[in-house]
């Protein structure tokens, strides 16, 4: 793989003998320092997302309801409102009802936060800007995100309150059901890409807007909208927010929570909104590519120039910053659409939520999955070519042969084995 991971280069730099002041550092310490660096960066992303999106939610909901929204805190647009909310929440008393199971009641918000934070670890923000570039990145991300419901069920059950228990149960039924179409829809572009590595999937869609998996075939085009609907439900956002439903159902799983613990749930919710939107823009909307051939070509050229030079290169860094900006813009737009939907559509009943998933979204996603598998074969038989790499059957065989070639010649240098292990 051409992209050198930041953690690796940081660890190498710290481990190198020529480091000033400190002298040589052992490899384990260097790796630990590098991972701490990543952790700090990701934690900032995780913490800033909710602050920005909660402000956006207040502002957008105000505008949609013909109000102004926050106007005073921090200047003209009230952009410090989230900080003021945070200060207010910190001051509140940390309550734990006597009927609750104290340990699990206090633990549940952290589980929710932790699982949505862990999803950011495998998320590439630009070409090579990823904490852990795992081959099964999407699988790790989906499995980690699905743990969020565990904290919510614990919160609902361990509050010792009937309202919370009902809320937790609604949430369990909803999230466990919606995980299935979510995974199937996320698999549809993966069939076209032939890789679960999110970085590779993003890299494949460069060059032109028609290279985005959204326009790859009719099935991925519909799959994007199905995925987005399911993602809204799996983040328990309106119109599927039966877990919360503050006004109608006396709150849900968080009835007994107050103060910071209550806000941890919402930090987790907004962060996972951003995470599923990031996945949507990586899988369907070209990731960090703008989709304009001249801009993409220019940025790729900058990146390649940066890669050619030794050590840190300002050009490659600049290209990656721009890429990360494009990526964050796409994901934030999707989050804004989620907010827009929330304040536009009325809430469904719980049986309607379940019917939507099991009777409509699940069959639709299965049909799309089948169609996406058959589509390359159809193209193959009619002799037409597509914009993207060859069908999956051929690609598996070709990757097999390239791997076999590497096995035969172990003396080949690392760069060539990397490019052989890559998809094409």
């Amino acid at each position, binding site marked *: *793989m051409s992209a*050198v*991971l930041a*953690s*690796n280069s940081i*660890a*190498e730099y710290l481990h190198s003998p020529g480091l000033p002041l400190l002298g040589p550092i052992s*490899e*384990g310490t260097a*790796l630990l320092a*590098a*991972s701490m660096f990543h952790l700090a960066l990701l934690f900032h992303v995780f913490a800033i997302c909710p602050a920005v999106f909660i402000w956006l939610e207040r502002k957008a909901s105000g505008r949609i309801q013909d109000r102004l929204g926050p106007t005073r805190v921090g200047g003209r647009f009230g952009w410090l409102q989230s900080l003021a909310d945070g200060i207010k929440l910190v001051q509140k008393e940390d309550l734990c009802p006597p*009927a*609750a*199971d104290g*340990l*699990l009641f206090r*633990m549940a918000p952290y589980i929710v936060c932790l699982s949505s934070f862990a999803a950011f670890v495998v998320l590439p923000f630009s070409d090579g800007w990823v904490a*852990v*570039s*795992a*081959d*099964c990145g999407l*699988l*790790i991300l*989906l*499995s*980690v995100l*699905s*743990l969020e*419901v*565990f904290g919510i*069920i*614990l919160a609902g*059950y*361990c509050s*010792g309150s009937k309202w919370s*228990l009902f809320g937790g*149960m609604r949430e*369990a*039924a909803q999230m*466990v*059901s919606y*995980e*299935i179409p979510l995974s199937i829809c996320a698999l549809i572009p993966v069939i076209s890409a032939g890789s*679960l590595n999110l970085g590779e999937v993003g890299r494949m869609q460069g060059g032109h807007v028609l290279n985005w998996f959204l326009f790859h075939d009719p099935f991925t085009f519909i799959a994007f909208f199905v995925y987005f609907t399911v993602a809204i439900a799996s983040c328990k956002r309106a119109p599927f927010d039966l877990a919360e439903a503050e006004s109608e159902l006396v709150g849900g799983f968080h009835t007994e929570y107050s103060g910071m613990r209550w806000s941890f749930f919402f930090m987790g919710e907004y962060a996972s909104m951003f995470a599923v939107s990031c996945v949507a823009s990586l899988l369907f909307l070209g990731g960090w590519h703008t989709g304009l051939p001249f801009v993409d070509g220019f940025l790729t050229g900058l990146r390649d120039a940066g890669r050619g030079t030794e050590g840190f290169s300002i050009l490659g860094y600049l290209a990656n910053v721009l890429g990360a900006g494009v990526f964050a813009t796409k994901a934030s737009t999707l989050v804004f659409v989620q907010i827009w939907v929330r304040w536009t559509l009325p809430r469904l009943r719980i*049986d309607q939520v*379940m*019917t939507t998933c*099991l009777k409509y979204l699940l069959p639709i996603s299965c049909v799309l999955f089948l169609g996406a598998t058959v589509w390359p074969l159809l193209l193959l038989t009619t002799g037409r070519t597509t914009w993207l790499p060859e069908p999956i059957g051929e690609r*598996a*065989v070709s*990757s*097999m042969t390239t*791997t*076999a070639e590497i*096995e035969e010649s172990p003396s080949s240098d690392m760069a060539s*084995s*990397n490019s052989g*292990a890559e998809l094409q």
Partner: protein
Amino acid sequence: MNPLFLLFATSTCLGAIAVVISQSVVRMAFWLVVSLGSVAGLFFLADADFVAATQLLIYVGGTLVLLIFGIMLTPSGPALKLKTPPAEIAVAVVIGLLFLLTVFSTISGVDWEQKEIVAADRQPGFDDQSEGQTLRPIGLALLGVRPDKAGASGYLLPFEIVSVHLLAVLIGAAYLARAKQRTRNSNPDAARKSGNAGDPNHGG
């Protein structure tokens, strides 16, 4: 020894002990999640990223379903305590000792010296070569192609058998949860409601 390994191994063992000691169903499920999640961490440390992700998805997610059923099928209230009769404790101790014997005999039967040589070939660090990346070989092996071992056959037949088995289980679950056949006297509304009530169980 790797400090992360020590951390995960300790929390695996402590979580497992806490599952046995604690008396509330929900706490047991919580500690089971801690234990199984730490096993997933151990898999990540051993560069088996696919197995680790699968462990998170299947075992930890499976415990979640267990927890839901544990709540739904037992009398509610977090104060509920489980009491184990002495006979059951005796049976459990015997089974546990037998299992320990099996594990011990298996571990002592493996030639660990040879395994360490294979492990030493790996490069340290977190780049693309060193890190697991077991997904593609596993996927190809399940399709019957073994690029890493010349002449070896893959696992296409077991994979297909498991797939058909799971499909049969899915159809069976859908059959059990279907709307019951309406008798002449029953209210059609009631039949529809009972059909809907079974739906959440599909996810398991």
